[in-house]
């Protein structure tokens, strides 16, 4: 190194240090004019910022420009470090359990039908929760006024509850035998045979829009 630029590089190095510290400590991205207040006379802030940016390129932290402001940010490829997934086992709420059981026995069924059996409105959150749990799916749309979405259970549902197929769901007599249903029930009461095959005659396919998992009629 020759003598002359030594002085300049010393000042430069000092300014880089200050820039580094100020940008590190700032609680928000800083623009050039506020950075300038920390620099010595005649500092070429644009050059300094580029130099600092290059110095941090490829490091775990990068100097990034946001609009006309500058800030340190975690390198994009390391952003996964700042996310963590926590699994928590939770017991299904009563409402969700009721809705799920009705869908299981009555499938393909619509939200209105579920509400009819439950005698109470079923929140969209309950359906969403069961969808997120992976236990129910939208099958199609009922060929009826309003074309409501029909719901059915998934393979994950069978898997979780240890069923080989839907026909393993106990019928009326078995439920009575297990003491789950009272024997005093009227003989007119029937339990439907759940159906999880392809679309039934009264079902149409889902709309293309339904693919994002939203029930537009909800």
């Amino acid at each position: 190194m020759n003598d002359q630029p030594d002085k300049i590089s010393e000042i430069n190095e000092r300014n880089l240090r200050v820039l580094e510290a100020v940008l590190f400590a700032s609680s928000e991205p800083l623009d050039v004019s506020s950075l300038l207040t920390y620099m010595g006379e005649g500092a070429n802030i644009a050059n300094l910022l580029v130099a600092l940016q290059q110095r941090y390129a490829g490091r775990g932290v990068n100097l990034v420009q946001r609009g006309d402001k500058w800030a340190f940010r975690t390198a994009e490829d390391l952003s996964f470090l700042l996310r963590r997934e926590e699994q928590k086992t939770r017991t299904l709420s009563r409402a969700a359990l009721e809705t799920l059981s009705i869908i299981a026995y009555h499938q393909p069924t619509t939200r209105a039908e579920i509400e009819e059996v439950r005698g109470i409105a079923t929140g969209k959150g309950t359906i969403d929760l069961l969808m997120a749990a992976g236990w129910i799916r939208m099958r199609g749309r009922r060929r009826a006024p309003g074309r409501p979405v029909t719901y059915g259970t998934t393979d994950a549902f069978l898997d979780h509850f240890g069923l080989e197929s839907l026909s393993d769901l106990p019928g009326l007599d078995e439920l009575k035998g297990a003491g789950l249903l009272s024997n005093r029930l009227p003989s007119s009461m029937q339990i439907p045979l759940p159906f999880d095959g392809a679309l039934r005659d009264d079902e149409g396919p889902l709309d293309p829009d339904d693919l994002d998992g939203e029930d537009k009629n909800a």
Partner: protein
Amino acid sequence: MTSAQTNWFDKPATPADDDILYVDVDGYEGPLDLLLDLARRQKVDLAVISVLALAKQYLLFIKKVREKRIELAADYLVMAAWLTYLKSRLIVPQAASDDEPPGEMLAAMLQFRLKRLEGMRVAVSQLMNRPRLGFQVYARGMPEPIEIAHISLWRASLYDLLKSYSIQREKGVTVDYAPLQRTVWSLQDASDILQRLIGDSFDWIPMDTYLIDYLVTPGERATIRASTFASSLELVRQGQIDIRQSKTFGPLFIRRHRSDPS
């Protein structure tokens, strides 16, 4: 707040004039603080300070304060008493038989405590003049917190599912349930009817024969038999009729009771 010798204590600088000292003790954090201030006024190293002179100054100071205001914290008076004792120990030569600690040791102890308090005060200044976090040294201004995505694993048993379904189906049924309207014979009705049917028949006739018209409807048999039987017992008690049964579960025979002993 910029000089290196920042006074971090909120106590105002002590006036140079000793005469002003007697005005108050409120500026001091206890007698030790006051003693330390007095010691500093000797303008010598604490190690070579005259404890005797210090004790005299303290006692004089307390005396002046008490002339102005009677009330004085007990701490100050306890210290005054102790210093009076210390003074006497320092002035009067130690007797050989004396069990009490020598005055020099008491003086050294006081000196030690003053030095230790002074030492802590210096330490405070040095600590507070360090580049402190948030004032001269900074942490990351824009921390990037770790985002925790909560994933719920739902749990339910097949039993819960089936129970839940069954409860709902049963609930749906009970909404339509209407209790059966049963015909019930009151005891009075049964008694009236039985009286009427028997009339004046003194022959043994099975009770069911009298009731044959009423027993056609199977749903009503139980209540009619029960009410009739109960009221027949009452009629026997009243001496209106007689009852006879030849064997267990055999037919009940009834007739009008003969009241006259013929």
